[in-house]
């Protein structure tokens, strides 16, 4: 085995040990899958000839290419699928945050209906007082009566 082979093997083992230490008990199944994949990879690193033999069987020139082609294809797909999941996840988060915001929105002046000429009344006593000191600070938290919280139609 060449020096590059030893270095790659060390990388594979090191990565696995790092994940084992940091993910440990939380992702046992993930680690088993990773360990199996790394074992296959490690075997081809340690024995390039067997990879080359396999590659020739299916008509690919070099053993390394035989391993790399599917890995790269898989990684590209994985990256796209991942981005899509993140996109969909954030879409859901936005809807959740938005719904909470709309449910807890307040109309000012208190008790007014927007878009009408009925505003101009004095705010009621106690309005505008931050009673509970909640630092998250929903507008609706700042009221004591709860009468002017607007709801979606």
């Amino acid at each position: 085995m060449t020096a590059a082979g030893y270095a790659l093997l060390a990388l594979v083992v090191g990565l696995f040990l790092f994940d084992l230490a940091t993910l440990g008990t939380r992702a046992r199944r993930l680690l088993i899958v990773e360990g199996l994949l790394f074992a296959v990879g490690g075997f081809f690193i340690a024995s390039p000839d067997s990879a080359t033999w396999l590659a020739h069987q299916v008509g690919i020139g070099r053993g390394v290419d035989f391993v790399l082609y599917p890995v790269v294809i898989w990684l590209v797909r994985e990256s796209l699928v991942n981005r899509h999941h993140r996109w969909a996840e954030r879409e859901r988060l936005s809807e959740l945050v938005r719904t909470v915001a709309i449910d807890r929105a307040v109309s000012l002046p208190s008790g007014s209906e927007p878009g009408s000429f009925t505003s101009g009344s004095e705010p009621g006593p106690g309005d505008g007082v931050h009673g509970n000191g909640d630092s998250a600070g929903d507008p609706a938290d700042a009221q004591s009566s709860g009468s002017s919280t607007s709801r979606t139609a």
Partner: protein
Amino acid sequence: MVWGRVRIAVLLPTFNEPALAATLASIRDQVAVEPTFDVTVFVVDDGSRVPVRRDALEELLRADRPGRFALVLARHRVNLGQGAALETARRLSLAHARPATPFDAYVTMDADGQHRAADLAALVGPLASGADVVFGNRFTGGTEIPRVRALVLRAARLLEWALTGLRLGDAHNGFRAFDERGIRAVQMHQRGMAHATEIRQEVARAGLVVAEAPVRVHYDEASLAKGQRSWGALAILRDILYKYLFAGVS
């Protein structure tokens, strides 16, 4: 159609914006000098570090003599981005629009003071003569635009033309007015700055009647520093691509 009374919903996202109170005060003062205006501002606090305080807004309302100025305040518990906050304001305003007295105009505006309440009448005007959407145009409004910014905007204008098929005099100007048909057509999925392009795509797709109105954009150091940088343009392209790839797949 001539309006006797113009009911305007202003959609105003804000995030850690020190100029918010000044912007709201300028809208309120504009209402005082426009006898036909009846304005409700939908303020969406997009998870500002220091939440927008309700009592601070009530303080503003105490000086509202004509009584034609109202506010609705909502808050995102976490920061989502300007596009997401604008979409929340859009839904909020539609939820508040009652069949008997709908809003005549839905105006999107920046909270940092770069858009002037004095331009509201000019922006809303074309809606009365049949437009569904009015985009503010800073190039015809006498704005003094820094040279680099003007170049970037011209490039953006070409790009938006290519992406949306709408050929307009200005790009990514957040000062716009919609009638009800218009605002219902522009549901936004883009959380970040790409919503400006998304709005134009939706406008083109819905076949809305488009107009432009001259507005003056007020530039100062703060708004220039905060404005979109060249990196922002790349992020916008990326977001547009992602939506193209992923929207409707889930």
